[in-house]
């Protein structure tokens, strides 16, 4: 058990939490508008899964992708500035909350059309196989996305061509206000894999280590055998679907109950169990506080892209 790693995971999960809390605050203060889909409660999934990757591996996600972007190595500054719509943001303020991208970190983006990014993921995995570059593609999506034809077609190609990819369904039990039983005829999302003869896994995602280790198996299968896997990770979002969602479709009890399994608590307990003394843990928490404060300041102080420069982003000359 590598204590350094445990610290990293805790740092990442906490930074993601604080980053999103800062985003929610900035949103309330009208620093920016649009949709804001918080990941709060699901942190162990993105952090654990990406801990199983190499830097050159590809990650692609949905509009709920702040965590995946950060866990892939993007800075809080880049992310914060992007949501502020600033030129210093990862996407120069053109993409916003739902469209974080970082070519250097191999983060291939957040996408707003449910299921629409799955075929792209099959494409990056295809490219890896084509080039024999040994990279793996991780594609994240929600439980509601599985109903989309694009998901089916992406999996059809990935399994037929044995692409080095891992499809990770973050099952947070709801798609917007719709509980899983109203969007799917089966309760087990991983069962979808049976239609394609694809390897599958399914587990609870509040423990970052379990997520890392189980995803690592699929990543190995992808990297060494070039075989895809469908993983369903059960999780929960503490907040509404987006800032505009009152969340009336869930009882207060249900939400409170879920908070008892907060991935941050679990992550902190891991440090305690590993005999990391309180002082060190508090240091991490202080570092995170400063990191996010700095990110907010950076975003506040950054300039916006002038309109004159906008046109050149539509086509490459």
């Amino acid at each position, binding site marked *: 058990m590598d204590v350094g790693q445990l610290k990293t995971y805790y740092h990442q999960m906490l930074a993601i939490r604080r980053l999103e809390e800062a985003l929610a605050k900035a949103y309330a203060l009208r620093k920016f*508008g649009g949709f804001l889909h918080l990941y709060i409660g699901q942190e162990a999934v993105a952090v654990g899964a990406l801990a199983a990757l190499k830097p050159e591996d590809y990650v692609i996600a949905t509009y709920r992708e702040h965590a995946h972007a950060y866990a892939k190595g993007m800075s809080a500054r880049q992310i914060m500035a992007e949501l502020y*719509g600033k030129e210093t943001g990862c996407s120069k303020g*053109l993409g916003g909350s*739902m469209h974080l991208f970082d070519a250097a970190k191999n983060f291939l983006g957040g996408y707003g059309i449910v299921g629409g990014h799955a075929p792209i993921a099959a494409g990056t995995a295809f490219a890896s196989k084509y080039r024999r570059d040994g990279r793996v593609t991780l594609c994240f999506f929600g439980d*509601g996305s599985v109903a989309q034809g694009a998901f089916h077609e992406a999996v059809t190609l990935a399994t037929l061509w044995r692409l080095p990819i891992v499809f990770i369904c973050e099952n947070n039990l709801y798609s917007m206000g719709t509980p899983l039983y*109203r969007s799917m005829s089966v309760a087990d999302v991983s069962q979808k894999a049976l239609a394609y003869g694809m390897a599958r896994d399914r587990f609870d995602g509040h423990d970052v280590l379990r997520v890392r280790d189980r995803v690592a198996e699929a990543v190995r299968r992808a990297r060494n055998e070039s075989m895809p896997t469908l993983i369903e990770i059960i999780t929960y979002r503490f907040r509404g679907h987006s800032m505009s969602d009152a969340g009336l479709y869930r009882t207060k009890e249900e939400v409170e109950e879920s908070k008892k399994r907060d991935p941050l608590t679990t992550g902190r307990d891991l440090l305690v169990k590993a005999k990391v003394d309180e002082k060190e843990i508090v240091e991490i928490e202080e570092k995170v506080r400063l990191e996010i404060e700095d990110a907010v300041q950076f975003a506040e102080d950054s300039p916006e892209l002038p309109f004159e420069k906008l046109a050149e982003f539509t086509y490459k000359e």
Partner: protein
Amino acid sequence: MRTVAFREALNEALSEEMEKDDRIFLMGEEVGHYNGAYKVSKGLMDKFGERRVVDTPIAETGFVGVGIGAAMVGLRPVIELMTWNFSLVAADQLINNAAKIRQMSGGQFTLPVVFRGPGGSAHMLAAQHSQSTEAIWAHIPGLKVVMPANPKDAKGLLKSAIRDDNPIVFIEGEVLYADQGEIPDGEYTIPLGVAEVKRPGKDVTIIGWSKMVKVALAAAEALAAEGIEAEVVDPRTIRPLDEDLIAESVSKTGRCLILEEGWPFNGVGAEIAYRVGKRCFDDLDAPVERLTGADMPMPYNHHLEQQCIPDAPRAVAAVKKLLYLE
């Protein structure tokens, strides 16, 4: 007369028509238990139950097709697309099935089905969530395209759309939902294919639909202050297009500005400009002008976004150019 919000006017139209005809049902994502992502269907599930207000998974190709099939065998579905941005995953169903089945079957099957939902940009929703799709749907013979600009039109046109026997694309300006407006107390409908002069004038014709009507009226207001009387014409239905009323207005004013939120290339404004140019060739004192959305994906940043959407100041400037005042 009563004052209601745009979304309430739509809700009334749905509720009134559903009460009258059991063949009508509403289907879409979050339309029922959630009362609608934009609350247009608020209270309808309580009123009509799960049989007639149907929540769906995120499967637009699937439930748009369900609307088509149900209409073929005699039901009158109203299919809500959470927003028209998501209609693109169901484009094949709308273009290859909805629009063509009547003709391919030699007229044996008619499709009384309404596809409705919010369209256009809102506020910092970025490229994938800020699209105007009317130019695409109006290109397709077999579809009708309706785009109301105020609560009165919204209710009257939606009722007509639901009673129409053809597949209809009904696009509601996402930023119009909260707009308040007066509507008649009793039962009324507004026929499809009939434009309306939203403000009379004699110096120039400004054509706009959906939220662009507000931009046109604001521009007309500003122009009036400078003694320029702009006539604002709202087609209300993009297809079929009320070419006569448009031509009549332009023949009178001799000048025409078309406002369109969507992209310029092959936009609805291009079609209107072509028809006006042909019908009013001898009456035009200046070439038809168009003020459209910027020819690029919508940027997220607020200031950039606003500069990509036609507004009153730029409409005023365009009119002055038309009048050679600049």
